[in-house]
């Protein structure tokens, strides 16, 4: 692999890495929202039950 091939691969890997990090952040955010929604559903049920 030549030096320029290494740099080009590196540049494309930067995009891929950034995308993976972004997906991980989104996944964590969605799971946090899911937990919050479950808490609120529980709280709403308790309020309705009495």
């Amino acid at each position, binding site marked *: 692999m030549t030096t*320029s091939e290494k*740099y080009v691969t590196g*540049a*494309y890997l*930067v*995009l891929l890495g950034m995308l993976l990090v972004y997906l991980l952040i989104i996944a964590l955010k969605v799971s946090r*929202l899911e937990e*919050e929604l479950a808490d609120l559903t529980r709280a*709403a049920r308790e309020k309705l039950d009495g």
Partner: protein
Amino acid sequence: MIGGYALAFYWAPEDADQGFSQKIFYLHVPIALTAYACFGWGAWKALRLLWTGERRYDLESYTAVHMGVIFGLLTLVTGSIWAKISWGEWWTWGERQLVLFLILFLFYSSYFMLRYSTESGPRRERNSAVYALFGVVLIPVSFLAVRIAGTILHPTVFTHEGANLPWQMLVCFLICLGGMLALAATLYRVELAGKRASVSLRELRELLA
């Protein structure tokens, strides 16, 4: 997007001057144009907020600026890698387009500091919108800088006479650009949906308290 990059690597001819390193063009330029589009979209939403006073535009403008900063960072990183191969250095202060893009990036990075330094509410929304709108002035300046400056280092592919590259390269570039814009639009929708859900949940929590 993957198809565009496959074509760029296996179908598009290799550049006679830069050789294999020119393949970064299909990554760097679409990312940079996507960053401009995100900032422009953020400014448009900011204008809509100031024009109509509808609060939903604040979140849309904020999300677009957020996406723009991510793509802006990617532009700087991929540009630096390309500069290292072509010019032998990661960064040069002598190139106006590079410096202007860095100013644009730092300007929009400061948007978050401004936004979170004030209490949430209509005042913060207006201030953020005005700031996002001011930044958009830097986009044409940054875009045209290399043409005005007439520099010899940073290449100018798209001139008044048209695209200065073979048609196969142009086709690949347009596919990659379309893919990158679609990726940004998808990420924008996902991010916006997450932020809206977060706001709705906060309101619901306040109602239930």
